[in-house]
């Protein structure tokens, strides 16, 4: 599984790409859908929401091989994650998302910004660009824009205050994942030799940090007016008692659930990123991805509403 050749658009293809262990359990490390050479020919789309046809060539690459993290199967906190009546710890049902609230355009000086809450996880995303390459010119690409992502967590984001220096392994990895997600979604070929900066900060962390960041950043990119193929919506799902749980909170994530993160371009059903660090039997994978896709579509509806409302507010202000 080191080639870049496989075409990866739907679940059977993904399953083909995923490495199967000798005992038929799978560990998806990170699977990314990249727009490497793909969209050179495509025409400039609208402001946002442009969707490519499936005929476009998409490259897939197993970009990062993370150290193999063995999931802690033992439910450490001893919590019953899913009751017999089908309710989770916080009272949601298995497929229900947490409450999503968002605002766009929270900062005036940045080109685009958004604030998003998903339950108790809160994130702030800011976008600068597209602008000319800062720093060394050699990083510039002649046919598309460079996307630069930076992920950080506020010192006050968890129950115990903790200094979080920049550049630790976890946030570097997260930055990389964000970068790869947005390289797949943003139409970078429209801005050759330029750079787009996306900064995301977790203000409060309660599970699903990656997905919340992606969702917030999507809104910020839209706010900045940078064309994208579609919203990128992300969601984590976990697997408990043969049931997929959507949008895990921290208690569930730390409760020894095998969780999977998925970023989706919902209209085409294309997967921008798929990540799972736990072991899972192959038979369960499809159900889990399916649940993740449904959850992502749910998120996209909310985001769409936020964008439309924001547009209305802005247009009424400008008097159009």
């Amino acid at each position, binding site marked *: 599984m080191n080639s870049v050749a496989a075409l990866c658009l739907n679940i059977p293809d993904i399953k083909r790409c995923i490495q199967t262990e000798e005992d038929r359990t799978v560990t998806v490390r990170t699977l990314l859908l990249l727009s490497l050479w793909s969209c050179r020919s495509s025409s400039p789309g609208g402001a946002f929401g442009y969707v490519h046809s499936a005929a476009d060539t998409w490259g897939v690459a197993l970009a990062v091989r993370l150290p193999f993290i063995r999931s802690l199967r033992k439910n450490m906190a001893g919590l019953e994650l899913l009751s017999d*009546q089908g309710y989770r710890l*916080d009272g949601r049902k298995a497929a229900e998302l947490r409450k999503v609230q968002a605002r766009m355009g929270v900062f005036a000086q940045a080109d685009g910004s958004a604030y998003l809450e998903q339950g108790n996880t809160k994130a702030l995303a800011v976008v600068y660009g597209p602008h000319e390459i800062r720093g060394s010119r050699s990083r510039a690409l002649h046919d598309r824009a460079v996307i630069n992502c930076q992920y950080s967590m506020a010192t006050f984001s968890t129950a*115990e205050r903790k200094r979080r220096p920049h550049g630790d392994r976890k946030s570097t990895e997260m930055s990389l994942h964000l970068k790869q997600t947005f390289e797949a979604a943003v139409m970078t070929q429209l801005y050759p030799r330029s750079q787009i900066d996306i900064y995301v900060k977790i203000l409060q962390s309660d599970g699903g940090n990656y997905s919340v960041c992606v969702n917030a950043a999507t809104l910020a990119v839209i706010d900045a007016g940078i064309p994208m193929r579609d919203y990128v919506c992300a969601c984590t799902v976990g697997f408990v008692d043969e049931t997929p749980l959507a949008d895990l909170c921290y208690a569930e994530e730390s409760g020894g659930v095998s969780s999977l993160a998925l970023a989706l371009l919902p209209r085409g059903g294309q997967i921008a990123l798929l990540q799972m660090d736990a072991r899972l039997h192959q038979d369960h994978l499809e159900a889990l991805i399916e649940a993740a896709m449904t959850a992502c579509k749910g998120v996209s509806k909310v985001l769409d509403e936020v964008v439309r409302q924001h547009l209305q507010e802005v247009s009424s202000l400008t008097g159009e």
Partner: protein
Amino acid sequence: MLKSKTFVKKTRSGGVMKIVREHYLRDDIWCGSEACSGCKQESTVLQTDACMESSLCSYPHYLVPDTNVVLHQIDVLEDPVIRNVIILQTVLQEVRHRSAPVYKRLKDVLHEKEKHFYTFTNEHHRETFIDREPGESANDRNDRAIRVAAKWYSQHLKTFECDKDGLKVVLLTNDQGNKQKAEESGLLVYKCEEYIKSLIANPELVDRLALSNDDKNEIGSSKVLFPEHLPLSRIQAGIKCGSFLQGTFRASRDNYLEATVFVQGEGDDSTEVLLQGLQNLNRAVHQDVVAVQLLPRSQWVAPSSVVLQDEGAAKDDDVEEEEEEKNLEQMKPTGKVVGIIKRNWRPFCGMLNVSQIKESTRHLFTPADRRVPRIRIETRQASTLAGHRIMVAIDGWPKDSRYPNGHFVRSLGSAGEKDTEQEVLLLEHDVPHQAFSQAVLSFLPKMPWAITPEDMVRREDLRHLSVCSVDPPGCTDIDDALHCRELENGNLEVGVHIADVSHFIRPSNALDKEAASRGTTVYLCGKRIDMVPELLSSNLCSLRSNVERFAFSCIWEMNHKAEVLKTRFTKSAINSKASLTYAEAQMRIDDTNMNDEITKSLRGLNKLAKTLKRQRIDKGALTLSSLEVRFHMDSETHDPIDLQTKELMETNSMVEEFMLLANISVAQKIYDEFSECALLRKHPAPPPSNYDILLKAAKSKDVEIHTDSAKALADSLDGAKVDGFPYFNTLLRILATRCMMQAVYFCSGMDSDFHHYGLASPIYTHFTSPIRRYADIIVHRLLAVAIGADSTYPDLMDKHKQSALCNNLNYRHKMSQYAQRASVAFHTQLFFKSRGILNEEGYVLFVRKNAIIVLIPKFGLEGTVFFDTKGKTVPNLVFDEEGPTLSVEQHIFCIFDKVKVTITLDDSNVQHQKIRMSLIEPVVRTQFNYSPDAEPQAKKLKLDN
């Protein structure tokens, strides 16, 4: 969907941490009542005509018990009479927190359709959720939540009930304060006792009521007998700093004043702490998890070899504090119980000792398991229950009571009857023995069953081979068959064909789950408790002769030196040509006139088996011995009429050799394929100290035994002979068997030591009896995946789940062995009852401080001969640890002495009928005589002079 947030503070391991969790409140949680027209529920649990005839509540009603009622009165709630109960989520969570066994039972009840128990998720319901008020304790808050939910229910039912027949909600609580507050808010509320007593139809339910705490001062004298248990927080602190040790409490079977606590240390080092005396045992019951405090080294003692039973009620203080020889090597750490970490109480089987006072409702109950103390219960049916086997659950053990308090659960039937005794035996050994449920049976194949062409796609057709099976007589679950034929190249092809049970039992269905929980088939005398339904065990899976059956075949190519050249596994279809018994097979081999295919194949197998056995023994496999007896049963009454020790023939070992070979081959294959999750079986080497008794015994006859390795042990056992004592070697092997460890199943990913000590094999598993062992089914599935004949499923690849399964299998296996032994013991008693008094020769197997244990080879029977008797002059006993020898007056007994004893059945105690033995030869200076009229309490040895 409304949503709100609640903030919970939680302390964890010392530090205080603020934990914030979301808490969603919903308005789509329905009330679950059939009568309700307001809720949009799809299915209802609670009935409209919820009638439990009660003199307190004449109207239909639903019960809402609070947490304490559920915790203490689960026996009552489990009764089929109690229906239409609302279990609130608050209650469920509290129960889960406080008692895992009760929680599990409650869950079982909730799943039972006929019980109409409904779980109401009140904590997430918009109208029943409440916030904790400032200054309110968590318990008070939960009580209030229960009241609010009950209130909501009564109003909800009033508003939405379709045909106004006055459905009401009754809150059950034992808490006075709670009851008062509930009454103030206009709820119908009763104490649990009040309500149960008011039930008209079922007065016997009252007996099942657990005694609640406020009644306890009535029972027992006011004097405090036991030290107080420490609170859990102090125990935890103590364990952390090392002043207390945590372990499982194991009462001694022989001495009610003695127990050991097994403390699991880090890694392999674990210690046993000895506890002596009622004060130090401090109300711990067998199998409880307790915290113990070690006593100073000066008080360490060796375990007493005295056999002591709790016979009298009052004399408990004269503990034998005899002069202990301060043999430092024998010293064991002693300690005392300071607190109970977890009670492991289950309902106990036993019998009632009816109180002397006629009108008394309090009686003592004696459990069948001698390790469990007697229990005081309250019942009005004592006269009907006397002479019956009953079940009793413990409710508590106050510190001023000599015995724990309990309540009656159910009656099993009158004692001494075979069916009752069998039931007791099965219950006491936790053997699941109910009939298979409909859900389980629904997964059986439909009859008539035949092999279809689709079945044959992945199977090899071996129906043409002359396969035969060799089993004990009367065996209907035949799971193995064999064949052997000569190949063209002069080599031999040997096939072991095992019933393909995994074809019929598919993973994770009800049938599979049931089989996994039963773990093994249990064979009792004259009865078999099947692991899988009979259709499979005795028909479709059983490899009977002249029918086509599916098999999982292991086929080797061997040369004439019995070296394996090739191994192949395949799913197959076979048609066995003959089902033989061991004796029949032996006759065919020996009869030179017979030369048919089957006989030839048997001869080939027999020859190879002998070579295989020699090779195995050369490698250091042990041949041990234990006496197994077989009863000849009367075909009509099923009473034993004769008893003989099992005989072993050549063909027994022939089948065994090939089964061992198949198991080893399969073990290797599945381990190669699945290094993380192969299910294997290991037999650890015993620690050297286990051999002490064997070494001492052998030394007394000037025989040297080497125990450095299995090979050395096997060789020295072979060499151990004493002139004029032919039985010596067998006795020695019996002793050696007692030194061994238990073989256990384990998952290869969780362990690193795979060695099988007894068989001298580096790897081993069980593959050959899938009809009667669940482990074999798992091994079949693994092997099927390994050869591409089947697909995996998630649980098979999960080593944690598999290791949990292994634990269950090991437990079931152990229990089934105990049950088997108990069943043999019971039938032996029946046998001797019909026989009267017998005089037999026997050998001394062990020497104890006040008794010798005698083995009678003819019956494979072991019994104890006591020398001290309560209330009688004790002969002069001198016990020598070194020998070990026991001198009674002038005569010295040591291991292997030949003695002559009288065997009688002592039925003075109906519950523990015993085989009594008394010495006839050698005559110890004072003559012992058996007197049948001796008072029941006295041990039957009596001094004549």
